[in-house]
């Protein structure tokens, strides 16, 4: 796995650049945008980009104004970048409307990605909703790893098609296990606790995963979310509380070691 030695922070070209959209796919409630990024480096799994479009603004309530943060979903063979987007407000709405031939305006890759599994622990991927995005590229990098994925309903559960070897849970039981993905995580860890967990999803799910893992002394890396204005450490707006005080999630995260956190419930994150 050459990738296991991949750097966790790949430097971003300075400034914002245009990336032409070359493909748009729909997975139930989600949109996947593939763009060409000839001037950009290959990002590390878990890193993210700040995205905007031409004519940003003019949506609900004269927004969006600031760019929005998105994990890289996958780096297609060859080049380019893929993003997974759920329409939850004016920014994501505008992005979901984009068609091939239009440009994304992006800055990135940003932040620190996942660290390779230490010791001989097996990687276990845990995702919820759009939080599955960084797990897809990480699964590629790792050359495979089992994934436990939770979704609200069937349209969202279609996102599971983006990963291999996935067990699914849905809140409404329409697909897979009827309940929370953390039920599956508990099951897995009880079966074999010698794992390292890579998790990304809504705050409540991350907090449940953190608690489960710390109770079992299972190492876990959590990809968090918080409201961001800049994505490169300029505004100090994205801080989350850790045992060493507030850290800027955009430069010291978004992936944090669960041991650093007293809680994964970040104020103002999630929808």
């Amino acid at each position, binding site marked *: 796995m050459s990738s296991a030695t991949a750097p966790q*922070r790949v*430097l*971003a*070209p*300075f*400034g*914002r650049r245009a990336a032409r959209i070359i493909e748009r796919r729909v997975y139930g409630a989600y949109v996947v945008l593939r763009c060409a990024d000839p001037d950009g480096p290959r990002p590390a799994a878990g890193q993210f980009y700040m995205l*905007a479009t031409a004519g940003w*603004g003019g949506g609900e*309530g*004269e*927004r*969006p*104004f*600031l*760019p929005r943060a998105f994990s890289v979903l996958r780096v297609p063979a060859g080049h380019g970048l893929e993003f997974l987007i759920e329409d939850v407000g004016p920014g994501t709405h505008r992005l979901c409307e984009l068609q091939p031939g239009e440009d994304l305006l992006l*800055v990135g890759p*940003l932040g620190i990605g996942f660290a390779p599994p230490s010791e001989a622990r097996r990687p276990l991927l845990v995702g919820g909703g759009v939080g599955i995005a960084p797990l897809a590229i990480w699964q590629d990098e790792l050359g495979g790893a089992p994934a436990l994925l939770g979704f609200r309903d069937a349209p969202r559960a279609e996102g599971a098609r983006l990963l291999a070897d996935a067990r699914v849970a849905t809140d409404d039981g329409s697909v897979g296990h009827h309940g929370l993905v953390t039920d599956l995580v508990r099951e897995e860890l009880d079966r074999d606790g010698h794992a390292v967990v890579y998790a990304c999803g809504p705050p409540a799910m991350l907090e449940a995963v953190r608690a489960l893992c710390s109770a079992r002394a299972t190492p876990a890396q959590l990809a968090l979310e*918080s*409201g*961001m*204005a*800049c994505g*490169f*450490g*300029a*505004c*100090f*707006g*994205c*801080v*989350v*509380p850790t045992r060493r*005080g*507030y850290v*800027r999630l955009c*430069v010291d995260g978004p992936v944090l070691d669960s041991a650093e956190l007293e809680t994964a419930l*970040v*104020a*103002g994150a999630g929808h």
Partner: protein
Amino acid sequence: MRTELCGIELAHPIINASGTFDAIAARRVFGDALLERFPFAAYISKTVTLAPREGNPPPRLWETPAGLINSIGLPNKGLARYLAEDLPQLAELPVPLIVNVMGFTGEEVAELVGAFSEREEVAALELNVSCPNVETGLVMGADPGETAALLHRVRPITDKPLIVKLTPNATDVVAVARAAQDAGASAVSLINTIRGMALDPRSGRPWLGGTTGGVSGPAVRAVALAQVHAVAAALDIPTVAMGGVQRGSHALDLIRAGAAVVAVGTESFRDPAAGARISDELAALAANSGNSLTEKPLNC
């Protein structure tokens, strides 16, 4: 487009606004490309206080129509660690360094000014008397007497230029600016953010951890232009103008209103290299309109 501010040589008239560009973090993200293509003609630090500050609890940001409310709360490592850890790194920047300081008493400000005054990496100091997230900042910068008293206290301490950053949340900004000039300020800078607030759509309670915050971005541009126009017309010392600048034309407006130098803040969040683009656009406009940027601004 070479220009100068209080004797400091600048390659062009565009600098950053305090607290909107962390050059040290940006270098971690963009590497040395940042130094090769540094977007600003001078670098102004985020506000430094005597003691370390954690800043306000999150959430700290709320997007508004064509703007942003922030309640960051001036997090910083405090004077001692700033001198030891940050100043050496900032000295590597290819542009002059201006340090923005804030104290909760004249004594604190004096200590900060004194400490930076001894460091020759520091070209000038900006006094933040206007941060709307910290009570004292509002009071000091909103009252001519308070401002004058502060300047009388710290002006004798240093030979370096002292730039007083004014608050827009005042009845008579011109009176405060005059008081600063008369008490020995080398320049004034404005506008800082305008007091604003947002509620959590779900709970109806204040969204920001700091309850209220400061509005910046295009939404405040017209307010900034009015205040810069009034202050620049009343003062003899130079004005550093900022507030919603996104394009060269916005910088040109502020220069026409009397500004010597223009600072870019929130727009850098949308594009880290915005400062360079704005400076290029300004140069092109100045060339076309045959407008010499150093010519005495129209006094209207």
